[in-house]
């Protein structure tokens, strides 16, 4: 599992875990993130059950297990959080932050020890060490209960499935030109995102944030000016196309 430090200032770090060369064939490649501040850390969308061992092994290279105090699941999908039953064994004292809507569904992955902390529809903030993270509503993008994570200090937005692209595990980490990257995103966004209204609401929220890195759960990451270019492109993109056929 490739680990990349996206941001580091003092003991405040963003680490991305992705591009696992041992990943089984047929499983979608995912980006996992860890935000650390002091002796606390949160894993953002820690991944599927198949990824648990390489993910935990990679994380332990940066922090001891007792410092992983929080987990975040943007929504209920298996590639996001089906590893929960195993994290439950590894981090019995951790707290899982996830949309309130999905609590009774996510518990199907197995959660006896970890504490579920419901995020209300309007979002909330969470202190990790000396920093404060914001859970930004991203409902219907694509899940009906969905949040992204914004770190105002690092100026990083973890944007879940928004900005995602289907690429091979050896793809570069950063978007270089939008014209070549857009074809890799278009169908995913048009088919997976169900609501133009929800899309515009999210774009309005995103434009209020100072984003130096937009970090989706699949594919490459965006930096300025590609962040703005993405927002403009997404704004014009008709989504929810499956019902128009």
């Amino acid at each position, binding site marked *: 599992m490739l680990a990349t430090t996206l941001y580091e200032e003092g003991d405040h770090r963003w680490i991305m875990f992705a591009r696992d060369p041992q990943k089984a064939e047929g499983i979608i490649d995912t980006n996992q993130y860890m935000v650390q501040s002091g002796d606390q850390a949160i894993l953002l969308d820690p991944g599927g059950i198949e990824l*648990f*061992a390489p993910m935990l092994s990679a994380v*332990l290279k940066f922090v001891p297990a007792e410092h992983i105090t929080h987990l975040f699941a943007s929504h209920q999908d298996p590639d996001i959080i089906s590893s929960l039953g195993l994290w439950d*064994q*590894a981090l*019995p004292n951790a707290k899982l932050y996830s949309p309130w809507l999905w609590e009774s569904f996510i518990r199907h992955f197995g959660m006896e020890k970890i504490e579920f902390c419901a995020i209300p529809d309007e979002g909330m903030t969470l202190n990790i060490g000396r920093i404060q993270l914001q859970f930004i509503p991203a409902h219907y993008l694509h899940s009906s209960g969905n949040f992204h994570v914004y770190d105002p200090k690092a100026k990083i937005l973890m944007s879940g499935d928004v900005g995602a692209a289907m690429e091979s595990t050896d793809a570069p980490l950063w978007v270089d030109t939008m014209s070549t990257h857009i074809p890799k995103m278009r169908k995913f966004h048009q088919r997976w995102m169900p609501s133009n209204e929800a899309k515009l609401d999210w774009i309005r929220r995103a434009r209020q944030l100072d984003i130096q890195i937009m970090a989706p759960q699949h594919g490459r990451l965006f930096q300025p000016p590609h962040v703005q270019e993405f927002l403009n492109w997404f704004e014009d993109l008709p989504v929810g196309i499956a019902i128009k056929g």
Partner: protein
Amino acid sequence: MATPIFVTAASIAAELHQAMLEAKGLALTAKNARALAVRAGSKTVGFKAITHFIDELASDIIRQSQYINGVSEHLSHNAVALWRASTAAEKFDWIETQHSDNIASLHHAMQSCYQQREALSHTLSRGLRELEQQLEEGDKHIRTANLIATSSKVEAASAGDFRNQLEVIAQNITDTADKIRAHLSQARRLLGQRQKHTP
């Protein structure tokens, strides 16, 4: 590859559920037989006495099937928990080989997981032994059912005008006992296969 134990236990529970349904049919047969014996009067006194045994046997089989069903379902649940703990333990073993810097910080969780796996494994072994004993108990009921079926046939033969109807009932008892025996045999076969594969 051996069938996972939670699948085996669930399959045994399903077999016992079927056995219980057959036993409910047997209870109904007992009621019909009793009604017929009352109508037939003195010629079927022997048969009437047997209907009480059929009724009692059906109740015993239903009670025991329900109990075994409960044991099997509990076993299946227990086996799933063991599978989860074992999966986590295997992942931890692999992580340990990776020499991660902070592997020591995971030791408490690892030990707790290994202990849980051990405890669940013991509980599962105990449950399997109990299941085997209960299934053996079920075989005794089947032997009783066969005796009752034979006696019913003998009594039916001397029931005069009611002979044909009572013979149908006696055959019904035999058929039902055969079906229950088949479900119990299948349950024991599943359990036997499981134990053959269990170290």
